[in-house]
């Protein structure tokens, strides 16, 4: 990138082809980093649209129909889905930390568990949608709830797909990298890139879990 930024004066020697490889690698890692943060930014605006909707309709309370008392999604299922997702994200975060310490197996177990828990969280949220005691248009609250859950579930499924590709890849290269530190320690460009992707995913998963917690507050505490 800009390592050679301060070249001044006479033209420096051209970049040799093998240095280009290094440039490409650092660019790829940088891209994954930037991309994941940007993804979080874009998703935040999407979620913000729903948070805005929540507070806007709540403050307007048109025709007194923001949230009639009796309309409640199941607190038990909602809380479970949120907690499961948060747990999965934290577990994965922990797994990545262990991976940095060279404990590849720990990460694999954590990642596969996080994948399973993520699927469970999706399942719970979808199940909750089928168990509502109100119709989608019964109130402002009902609309925001019924509208938000599929969005969260879809983004979550995207994240789970990402995690699945990481796990699948790591399992496939396990034998080839064994003895050279495996995923956590191998110094090949591909391992570096895979770790970058893993870090990026880690942030995104935690982000989704935290969004889940935030909206849990909106839906069950503030309501």
């Amino acid at each position, binding site marked *: 990138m800009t390592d050679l930024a301060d070249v001044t004066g006479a033209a420096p020697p051209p970049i040799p082809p093998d240095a280009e490889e290094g440039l490409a690698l650092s660019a790829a890692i940088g891209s994954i980093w930037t991309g994941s943060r940007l993804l979080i930014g874009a998703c935040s605006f999407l979620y913000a649209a729903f948070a805005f909707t929540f507070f806007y309709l709540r403050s307007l309370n*048109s025709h007194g129909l923001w949230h009639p008392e009796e309309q409640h999604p199941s607190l038990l299922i909602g809380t479970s889905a949120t907690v499961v997702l948060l747990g999965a994200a934290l577990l994965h975060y922990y797994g990545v930390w262990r991976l940095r310490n060279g404990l590849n197996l720990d990460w694999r177990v954590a990642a596969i568990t996080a994948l399973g828990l993520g699927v469970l969280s999706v399942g719970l949220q979808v199940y909750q949608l089928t168990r509502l005691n109100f119709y989608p248009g019964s109130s402002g609250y009902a609309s925001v709830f019924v509208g938000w859950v599929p969005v969260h579930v879809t983004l979550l499924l995207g994240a789970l797909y990402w995690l699945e590709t990481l796990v699948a890849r790591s399992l496939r290269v396990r034998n080839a990298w064994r003895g050279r530190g495996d995923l956590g320690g191998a110094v*090949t460009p591909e391992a570096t890139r895979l770790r970058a992707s893993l870090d990026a995913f880690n942030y995104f998963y935690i982000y989704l879990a935290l969004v889940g917690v935030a909206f849990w507050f909106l839906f069950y505490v503030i309501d």
Partner: protein
Amino acid sequence: MAIDMSNAIGVEVPASEQVPGAPGELPPDRRRGFQLPALFGPGLLRAGVFAVLGYLLGHWFGNLLASGYQQVTNSGDNNTSIILGYLGGTIGWVAGIGVLAYPLFKMTGKEELLAPQRRAGTSRYFKYTLDHKVVGIQYMVGMIVYFLTAGLLALAVRTELLSPTSHVFGPGVYIEIVGEHGTMMMMMMTSVVVGPFGNYLVPLMIGAKRMAFPRLEALSFWLTPAAYVILLSSLWLGGFPTGWTGYATLSIQAGQGMDAYVVAFGVMAVSIILAGFNIIVTVINLRAPGLTWGRLPVFVWGVMTTSFLMVLATPVLFGGLYMLAMDRTVQTSFFTDTLGGSSYLWENLFWFFGHPEVYILALPGFAIVLEMLPVFCRKPIFAQKVAIAGMVGVSSLSFFVWQHHLFDSGINPDMRPLFMLTTELISIPTGFIFLVGMGTLWKARIRLTVPMMFCMGFFFNFLLGGISGVFLSDVPADTTAHGSFFVMAHFHYTIMGGLLFAFFGGLYYWLPKMTGRTMNQRLGKWNFITMFVFFNSTFLPLFAVGELGQPRRVFEYAKRLQTLNDWVSISAFLLGFAILLFVINLVWSMIIKPVATVENPWHSRGLEWQTTSPPPPGNFERIPIVLASPYEYGNPEALPVSDLLSPGRAPVAANGANTPTGQATTAGPDTERTS
């Protein structure tokens, strides 16, 4: 989305660049078993078939889900099946073109290390490809087609308005046409610069061999034809009555044509987000060594600030469209006040996107014009930092002005002074662009080539557009102007007079780069003159029409305004001919009788001109080291822009790009080179 997040892995390394079998590296996975007969291979044919199948499947599923709804039985309109059909069709389309193969393949844990076969010839332009230059050309052709379609619809609008009382189309079809025109122009043209020029030129200008996420880039293009077809198909479902703003609750009341609006805009929103995302990541990470932020061309700055708006503002629109779709299918009540919703909600969500959107449409125009000015003034860009500050300022302020669209709506009336202030503040950074433009013109050595003419046209048009905006930002003056033809004239001045003039200028400027062929300059001059004259003759009277009391989107109007309206309509038809002149020039110069360009025809210092026209597959023989700003005209001490100009290369670029003061070189094709 996450789909492409980890793919920066060496997929795009051109085969020639690959260093196989670095010690300890894994052997590349070969994609065996994926070879299908040509008919079923990825391509337009398969995409078309899949799209139809996807539509039918989605439609069937929607019917299955919703046929029991009372609402569906009574109205005969099943919105669920239409929306799912369109979504299925879109997925089928991108699957057919070959987008989904890699993400699915990735799920197995394999990694595709080989670049897909490089396809030569014209056929690659009809395929899913990872070459940013091919995507750029695809975007360019697509955008021109979308623009012409929407332009024809505009002529239909003006045809109806020839008479205040008798009707060519009638009120229903007229509103459909207005909606189609507006929506197509606003949503498709969002990518009019970022799509073609952003994708094609940004890697060339930053000295990169590729974009950061080539698959997302290709996907972002291949979504646009889907959005285009879906939007047009609305006409067969009775169109949508809401115009491009899609105000609820009219949009919930509307028939099935509205579903096409929702899905098409949603698909385009995804495309916009992906395109912007890719550009930002590319600019941040793939710049060549030595390309500091200070040396980054203004065009790249402009495209990048635009991209930030695209990535951050569009999700809000997407959320709004999704809520609209939910209201229309599963019957939530986001926008229905009697059930706890509010029609204000849509106005807020839509304009929170909508106002950044109009700057998404303005900023690339600034970028193109400021990029071309130094070349044709033979001077450094004046106060480059001010220019950048202007663009960054415009884009960040644009998030805080949206309620000026709602001054009369009754939303937060006590906030109006604030939004009046922010709106007027935004003219400060916009003024920077004029400062930079005028500073660059100061004592310049102007070559009045066709692109330069479009630049000058841009400044004039955008000046009027911007000044008229001040009337709209002032609440009392806005009371009359709001919702009238005045607004309509205002944003046509900024978007058509601004963005599209810049786009046309950009085409004349960069087509030689992109195709190796040069546009006919004589036709180009006539194209500019007619376009400039008839553009102003079309839209200048509309300011008056609006202030004299003609609301927007009406099929009938006061008889006293007929003369003005007829004048406008006739000018609009002539403007149509002016644009036809461009199409003729394009087809003639690019296809029928191509004239090869000389390399670097404009004698630009820009990095994009330091390679052949069109550039080879990897853009540059090697990654360049950037040594100086591209705008160092007239500086005898300036280094060449990059180390590519070392011995062994033809001297043309060096000579033209870095002419020492006073030294004369021969000019490019701007001096009448018709053969």
